[in-house]
């Protein structure tokens, strides 16, 4: 009995799926637009992203043996501070965390004290809303008090917080490097010929690595030497983009060095464990055919 019922139910479900399948195929076959089976080149952004895969930032933190280059992180922090910080916060990072970049207590304190935007506070005498200088224990302050203020100041766009940016995008470090270092180009003519609607609207900027190709952010790194590096590295746009990508990799994953180091210790321990466990297994079973 149960087999009859199941056969009827099974045949019914297959029939309903066949019905859906039929209409899917009819829908695709009857679609006169450029839409193909994978839907891929139907849009300008698919067309561009397929032609321009992300560039490799070649960060030393990549790969199994990846480790941060502290000098690069310091350079990246400098780029962030002098360029990005005008609009973008890193609210999940505290000033004290900068010690991991190799700054000493005094330097961290000086960076916090000298940070342009102050911490929200209250006046200890009157209780009124006020601000005070940053302390090493503070997180980096928000640039804008809220999204409305951010939109008002930025042509109706909200500059996202960058703390987790490299983890919030596919291949994040390469994405940041490609976007700010090599993303701003003139819109190619063949793209406009193929997709006339893709023309970048006024107030936005064409960026070949941005999801929908039109980004609100004006080009942040416009010329070599925009930042003066203290360690003598030549501040080309490419170098600054790499360094800031490295810095943002650190803000998103500050424990990467510890993690990789502990990882090798754990894998080594477990390899020895497996070796011994396999020996114990063979020893226990040595007289038992199985």
């Amino acid at each position, binding site marked *: 009995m149960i087999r009859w019922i199941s056969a009827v139910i*099974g045949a019914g479900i297959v029939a309903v799926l066949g019905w859906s399948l039929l209409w899917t195929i009819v829908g695709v076959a009857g679609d006169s637009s450029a839409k193909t089976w994978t839907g891929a080149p139907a849009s300008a952004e698919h067309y561009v992203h397929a032609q321009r895969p992300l560039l490799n930032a070649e960060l030393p933190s990549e790969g199994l043996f990846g480790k941060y280059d502290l000098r690069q992180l310091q350079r990246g922090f400098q780029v962030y501070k002098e360029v990005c910080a005008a609009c973008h916060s890193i609210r999940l990072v505290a000033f004290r965390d900068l010690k991991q970049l190799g700054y000493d207590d005094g330097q961290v304190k000086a960076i916090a004290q000298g940070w342009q935007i102050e911490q929200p506070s209250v006046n200890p005498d009157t209780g009124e809303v006020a601000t005070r200088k940053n302390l090493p224990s503070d997180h980096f302050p928000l640039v804008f008090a809220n999204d409305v203020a951010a939109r008002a100041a930025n042509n109706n766009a909200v500059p996202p917080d960058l703390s987790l940016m490299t983890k919030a995008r596919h291949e994040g470090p390469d994405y940041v490097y490609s976007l700010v270092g090599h993303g701003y180009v003139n819109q190619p003519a063949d793209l406009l010929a193929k997709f006339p609607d893709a023309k970048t609207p006024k107030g936005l900027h064409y960026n070949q690595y941005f999801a929908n190709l039109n980004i609100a952010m004006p080009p942040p790194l416009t010329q070599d030497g925009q930042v003066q590096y203290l360690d003598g590295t030549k501040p080309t746009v490419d170098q600054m983009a790499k360094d800031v990508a490295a810095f943002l990799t650190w803000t998103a994953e500050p424990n990467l060095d510890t993690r990789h180091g502990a990882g090798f210790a754990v894998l080594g321990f*477990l390899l020895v464990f*497996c070796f011994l466990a396999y020996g114990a297994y063979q020893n226990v079973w040595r007289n*038992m055919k*199985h």
Partner: protein
Amino acid sequence: MSFPWAKHYEPKFALTKWVDERLPLPRLVYNAVGAGYPVPRNLNYFWNFGVLAGAALAAQIVTGIVLAMHYAANGGVAFDSVEHIMRDVNAGWFMRYAHANGASMFFIVVYIHIFRGLYYGSYKAPREMVWLLGVVIFLLMMATAFMGYVLPWGQMSFWGAQVITGFFSAIPIVGDTIRVWLLGGYAPDDAALNRFFSLHYLLPFVIAGVIVLHIWALHIPGSNNPTGVDVKGEQDTVPFHPYYTAKDGFGLGIFLLIFAFMIFFQPNYLGHPDNYIPANPLATPAHIVPEWYFWPFYAILRSFTSDFILPAKLWGVLAMFGSIVLLFFLPWLDSSPVRSTNYRPVYRTFFWVLVADVLVLGWCGGSPADPLYIVLAQICAAYYFAHFLVILPIVSRMERPRPLPNSITEAVLAKKGGTSPSETAVSGSPLAAE
């Protein structure tokens, strides 16, 4: 316990004797996973995965309890409290990555465990109850994993909760009321987040309880084995300890090696970048995808694209739940008395088609809803249901199984270069005669 030759627990010391007379807990453990449990001697490595699933659950509970000490289930602070764990809590990054990847490890191990049961007929008499309880555990795991994924309150958390609870609104008439009741509001918010946290903490202990029943039910007939042939005598079994504790120890080492590699070197590989963006009810992600272990079911859900008497959405939801519910009926859909697929030449082909089918469904479920993937998923979903509801019942009736070995020991000795089982076996199916 299951076999008369099982070893008996004999306390050696005055203290253990004293305990045994008052609370025979050591005796229970001895009989459950100690020397008192006779197990077929021919189990292969696929029999490691039950113990590994238990280990994965234990790891999830330990890391989860620590995470709960630092997590705050409130929409305003949940995302930041997770980042606080990642940055400021000692070894917090390890706990969180272990918990996030531990869920994936738990599912991969359980999927292998389930397909092992399917291949070797472990769901058949007299082990139906073991299988039924296993399906219950699987359902509980899915509920727990879904609610756990909501807790970090990232974009995929929020929109995943939106989509999954939206299933209930497919129910005619009362659907929307049920959805609002489940969420405690019109969209996922503090009320939903709080109850998901509460249930996410509760359900693992329910799972642990059902696992106790699962093992209890298993110990009545004893473990199945790769031949599917019943244990005939003492020569067919070995005590669980030390034989299988030693083998499981090695299996556990390999499991931990892979687990550790994921935690320390690829911690975000199985996650979605969008979940590092705080939940925003006003911005829908371009592609809402669940975690990889839900992909096959997500593909089934999305396969129903056209209304057919009932709305397509309702069909999708019914089929998605149906794809798991039908597993409850499996012991009665498969009437073949031969357990192990090794001796079922026709079903064996269909079994591997099913494995490939589920993998393709998973691939489709993780891909964008382009026509190619939809059509593939529709074909594969149709096969999934046809396999269990139509093909399996027919094959199990028509198929002529290969001769079974007379006993486990004979199969073992034949494999080690002795006589081949086909020379000494009774033709047809000796199981049916027993």
